[in-house]
């Protein structure tokens, strides 16, 4: 379970990216986070993964109390979540296969397990035939799918995706969302930051809307049209 309690986040330069956020996300929930550019959506995911630290309030995910988590524990926090970044963040000098395998290598997984799991996820994102390519030999959408596979491969309890469909065509977009739905059905918490009104409208799920760092709406189904 994730709980934001009066969370605020002010960047060193003084930008108040989040103000007094209260939010509870239960295990196994599916949540869309929407809002204008610069509203604070990415900041929210950065807090969750320990890349930035709350400057006020309390933020707990599972057993981790993020407002006072020591630096040395952050790697273990990150192993509980799979993250798809807005800018992919792949290893440019590792092949697609190695990129995905690395998430398992880091947690000291057995080579035999790695050899079994990676192809499954390669297949899931339809990149089996591009397993030996390097990221810059892939199109934008293909890179995004590699990021997807890497986020899922070590079977995390939670998936966080920041604009996961920003670079793929509508059809692929829908497929990736379907994938997230399936993952969600397996009991994983899924948090998706997105601008795609169409998708949000189709999947009748919980939608949290942020404006200027504050939560202005939190309800099930449909993009909050009046806001954007």
């Amino acid at each position, binding site marked *: 379970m994730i709980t934001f309690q009066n969370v605020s986040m002010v960047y060193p330069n003084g930008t108040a990216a989040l103000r007094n956020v209260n939010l509870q996300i239960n295990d196994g929930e599916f949540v869309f986070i929407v809002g204008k550019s610069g509203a604070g959506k990415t900041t929210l995911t950065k807090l969750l993964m320990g890349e930035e630290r709350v400057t006020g309030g309390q933020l707990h995910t599972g057993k981790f109390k993020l407002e006072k988590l020591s630096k040395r524990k952050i*790697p273990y926090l990150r192993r509980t979540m799979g993250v798809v970044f807005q800018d992919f963040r792949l290893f*440019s*000098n590792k092949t697609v296969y190695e990129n995905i395998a690395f998430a398992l290598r880091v947690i*000291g997984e057995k*080579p035999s397990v790695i050899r079994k799991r990676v192809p499954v996820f390669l297949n899931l994102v339809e990149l089996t035939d591009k397993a030996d390519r390097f990221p810059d030999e892939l199109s934008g959408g293909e890179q995004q799918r590699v990021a997807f596979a890497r986020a899922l491969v070590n079977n995390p309890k939670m998936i966080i995706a920041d604009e996961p469909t920003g670079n793929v065509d509508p059809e692929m977009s829908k497929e990736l969302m379907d994938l997230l739905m399936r993952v969600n059905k397996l009991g994983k918490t899924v948090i998706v930051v997105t601008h795609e009104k169409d998708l949000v409208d189709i999947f009748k799920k919980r939608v949290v809307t942020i404006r200027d760092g504050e939560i202005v709406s939190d309800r099930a189904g449909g993009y909050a049209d009046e806001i954007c």
Partner: protein
Amino acid sequence: MKFVRNFFYLLGQGIVGVFRNSVMSTASILVLVCCMLIVGTFGLVVKAINDNLQRVDTLNVIVAYINPAATDEDIQKMKKDIESYSTDITVEYVDKKTGLERLKEEMGSEIDLEMYLRDERLNPLPDTFEINFSSAEGAEALNNYINNLDNITDTRHKIGLVEKVNTASKGLMAIAVILMGVLLLVALFVIMNTIKLGVFARRDEIAVMRYVGATNTFIITPFLIEGIIIGTFSACLAYGIQYYLYTQVISDIVRSYGIGTIAPFGETAFVVGAGFLGIGLFAGIIASGISIKRYLSE
């Protein structure tokens, strides 16, 4: 099990790192080897000089001229007096005839000294004591003591020269130490550089590693291993070259100049090896440690 698996993976990554950045690794090794060789060579040469100095007996001698008027008893008493000055010295009485014979031997054929040998009264040389001492320290005082004895007209010695040679070999050692210090610093910089370049080349990689939950140990270890490999390899290489330099080049020079003898390499092999390895590991670990630590704490 997990630990061992990780260890071999990270060891492999470290080795890969050495080769990936081969130009820089070569540079590091080059600098380190230079540094080691300079220390080693200077050290060994100074040692050889010292060894030889101790063997050059003629330097550690005071020759005291005895007043021709002294009686045999006087001479016997004087010898006792000098001998009692210290346990570290030996005193030999050389009468003027022996002195002349030695001179004749030294001079060779071109000067005919026969007639002086035949008629003792013509011998221009005085009787002397030859006092051997073992260390230049205190030799000055000994010399004064002897000089002030009754019936000693004068003394000759090369104490000043001994001191000069000592100072020179100390100076040589000082230059070696300074050179070594500077080179070690340079070596540190170069290795830091090498590792830093490695870190830089992989900074995106490191960033991503951290995002997927890699611990600092997991990230640092390959770089440390890279440093250790560079240090160890440099030490081995330097050892080999030093062995060659010592047994072939230095010995050759010493022999062809007839400067003196030189101890076999075996005597100092362990010290040289341990020293080189120490320098190598020190430089390798410190350098990689610093550069990656600084990066991670950013």
